[in-house]
């Protein structure tokens, strides 16, 4: 019961503090820019002599870039909106009035996590499916396995959310934010290094990427999502930024799920044990 009350108040807080609406507004602005860009590109193609096959590949690549932007925005938005919820309330003393109520601390943490997870779900649903819809209606292209792609993007968000919560039980808001964004940066770089290693089959570079993904698997989840969504032909074209030259396995997705659960368990344990 306490979990759902906390989840509800956290979601309402996001809505009432305009975090959710601001994020959704930013998402809508992104969709507008993406839609205009797609529309202009399609218009230019109508008056050009580019072969239809190549047009389709270019518009498909634009859609993938749009979805990659959605992925980045969703992860950063999830991190930034949730980074203050634990550490900020500990610092301000707001948590004292809640933590002295008859609900275990794990319920406070899990309730807040569910609230932000719901908010991320709304954000991903709007921006991801909005981008897919624009790609279909304006560009006439569709990705493979969009549901799988959306779920993986959402998984990436809740992994980042769990990591943010874990550091929030230890450090101040600013420190937590810096650490989590730093980890996302490591994952981003590692993911691209691993991708680059696929072109040259360099195992040492791949190892750096894999280790980065083990430390923070966010980018690996996106690369798997990209692999699942891209058409086999586009994926095999080596000039695509999301070419399937180094695809994270399903084991890596399983690892990301276990990673998230372990991180959440550590967050819960530390929040329960620490002084407030």
């Amino acid at each position, binding site marked *: 019961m306490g979990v759902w009350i906390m989840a509800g*108040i956290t979601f309402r*807080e996001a809505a009432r503090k305009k975090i959710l609406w601001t994020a959704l507004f930013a998402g809508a602005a992104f969709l507008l820019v993406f839609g205009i860009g797609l529309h202009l590109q399609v218009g230019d193609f109508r008056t050009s002599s580019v072969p239809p096959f190549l047009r389709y590949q270019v518009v498909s690549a634009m859609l993938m870039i749009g979805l990659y932007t959605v992925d980045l925005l969703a992860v950063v938005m999830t991190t930034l909106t949730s980074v203050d919820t634990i550490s900020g309330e500990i610092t301000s003393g707001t948590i004292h009035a809640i933590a002295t109520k008859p*609900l275990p601390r794990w319920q406070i943490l899990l309730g807040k996590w569910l609230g932000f997870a719901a908010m991320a779900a709304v954000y991903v649903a709007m921006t991801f499916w909005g981008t897919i819809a624009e790609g279909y209606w304006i560009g006439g292209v569709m990705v493979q396995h969009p549901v799988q792609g959306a779920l993986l993007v959402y998984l990436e968000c809740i992994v980042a959310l769990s990591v943010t919560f874990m550091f929030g039980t230890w450090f101040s808001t600013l420190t937590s934010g810096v650490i989590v964004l730093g980890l996302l940066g490591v994952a981003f770089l590692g993911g691209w290094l691993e991708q680059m290693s696929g072109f040259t089959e360099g195992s040492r570079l791949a190892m750096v990427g894999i280790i980065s993904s083990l430390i923070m698997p966010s980018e690996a989840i996106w690369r798997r999502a990209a692999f699942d969504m891209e058409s086999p032909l586009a994926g095999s074209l080596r000039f695509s930024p999301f070419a399937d030259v180094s695809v994270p396995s399903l084991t890596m997705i399983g690892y990301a799920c276990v990673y998230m659960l372990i991180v959440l368990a550590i967050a819960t344990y530390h929040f329960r044990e620490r*002084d407030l």
Partner: protein
Amino acid sequence: MSHTDGFAVQTQNLRKVFSGKVAVRDLTLTVRRGEIFGFLGPNGAGKSTSIKMLLGLAKPTSGEAYVLGAPSGNVEIRRKIGFLPENFRFYEWLTPPELLHLHGRLCGVPASLLSQRIPALIDMVGLTPHVDKRLQYFSKGMMQRIGLAQALVHEPELIFLDEPTSGLDPIGRRMVRDIIRAQRDRGATVFLNSHLLSEIEITCDHVVFIREGEVVTSRDIRAQQEDAVRVEVRARKISAECVSGLARWSAAVEVDEERLTFTTPSREPLPDIMRYLVAAGADVYQFTPQRMSLEDLFMNVMGEDRGL
């Protein structure tokens, strides 16, 4: 620890150390059920840390603490505990009824009961004119008032109030005093931490003084009238022998020309002292016994150099 049932709070050798720094050294105290208990001490004495340990917000390094018969930190017992933190803060986007509804629900109070109780509580703390206002527009005093209401929304058996009158004007202070007494009258125990000694003196039944995380002394305020008495005498011809003879009744005698002050453990020996002074040849113009205020007692116990 045994026989915890008769007590609202009982601690034994409670100790808290933060990174090698001792915050609470060795706290042993008892709070009887149904009393208003004052918890006094200078800044840094360990009052807030002690309250945090009793409420389960901080884990003791060693020692035992029982609250309403259950070990401190017990989650279920918190249904019977209310807490107003010092400088109460909460989600600023809530209105007073929303805040009380949330806290009531977290305490397991049915929504139907809350819908009756919340307007009465808001009225009790004087916030009815601000019922639609969000907390972000509340002054410090208004936050204290709504914080007090949230501590009472589930009609707890034990209420911890940490500086409940800070930020309140005299009318607000009086309101808090009346609410505290009303809570005692309905059978609740109130654990009051305040720097305002005059407030404590008016409100509390029993106080303890702590210093460096240890109880220095305790006083039953209601019985204090039978306690120490400070006497001020104005007289001429006070000889040195006369002053030294007062030692049999008082250890601390001060003489400033025609002004003589001393403290006796009770009012009992005052007639004897009066007769003694006259017999010793002093011309007594004024003999004024004064009950020691809590502030005097505090200064006596803590020492003049310690700030509040």
